[in-house]
């Protein structure tokens, strides 16, 4: 059962990924990315990461994607022109990506897996276990992310403000 779920979700994710890079209109790319994110959230659930599953749907498929859709709605439909200026871009990229995929494939085959720790899997990945990690060992990085978000918010407000000479 879990195997069937994995393969359906994986196929959807790869199809969505291909959609992201092949659709000509940005709005279709964004909707393909939503498909990728939803199928990845299913995989997170398979890997007993319940909290990451919820965060993935709320933060990514919800907030970030709505942000992208808003920007597309704001900018209007932008189309890509037929050809770029760099003549060998596509060929060179294909070569580079094949090498990259081959390298990663070889790395995955050669991973030395460590003996897993003995953890209660019914507790693993739940909100409680995440919270125990976030608020004890990793409290400092957790607080730093709040500063990161504050800086990002201030930066976005600064960049999108109305300039005096525009008025």
């Amino acid at each position, binding site marked *: *059962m*879990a*195997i069937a779920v*994995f393969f359906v979700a994986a196929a959807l994710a*790869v199809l969505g*990924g*291909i959609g*992201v*890079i092949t659709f000509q209109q940005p709005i279709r790319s964004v909707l393909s*990315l939503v498909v*990728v994110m939803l199928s*990845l959230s299913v*995989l*997170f659930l*398979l*890997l*007993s*990461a319940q*909290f*990451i599953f919820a965060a*993935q749907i709320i*933060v*990514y498929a919800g907030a*970030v994607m709505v*942000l*992208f859709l808003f*920007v597309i709605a*704001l*900018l209007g439909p*932008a189309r*890509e*022109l037929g050809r*770029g200026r760099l003549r060998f*871009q596509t060929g060179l990229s294909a070569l*580079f990506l094949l090498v990259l*995929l081959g390298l990663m*494939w070889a790395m*995955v*085959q050669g*991973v030395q897996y*460590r*003996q*897993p*720790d*003995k953890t209660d899997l019914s507790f*693993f*990945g739940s909100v409680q*276990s*995440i919270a125990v*990690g*976030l608020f004890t060992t*990793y409290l400092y990085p957790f607080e730093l*992310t709040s500063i*990161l978000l504050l*800086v*990002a918010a201030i*930066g*976005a407000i600064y*960049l*999108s403000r109305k300039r005096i000479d525009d008025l």
Partner: protein
Amino acid sequence: MSTLNIGGSQLDASWFLLLSAILFVLGAAGVLVRRNPLVILISIELMLNAANLALVTFARQLQNIEGQLFALMSMTVAAAEAVVGLAILVDIFRVRDVEDIDDLSEMKG
């Protein structure tokens, strides 16, 4: 040892890692080949998601929560990156229409 027992079925951790590698390469392809700056940002999100999948897979294989915590952190970073990237993009589009990211190469010094 890389086999994961999920709901009674045996799944291999390397399947998840290979899927993550494929998604990462697709995102890299988007960044390299596409020329619309918005689509490039979307492809970067795809690559970040692929990395998250690898993190969560290793967390499950080692039965260690730290991988999931790191995935949460990278989600936060991805959200911040999207916000600032889109703000820059909107600011650029206010001045001019960019159909090709190479149009901006004149900004170099």
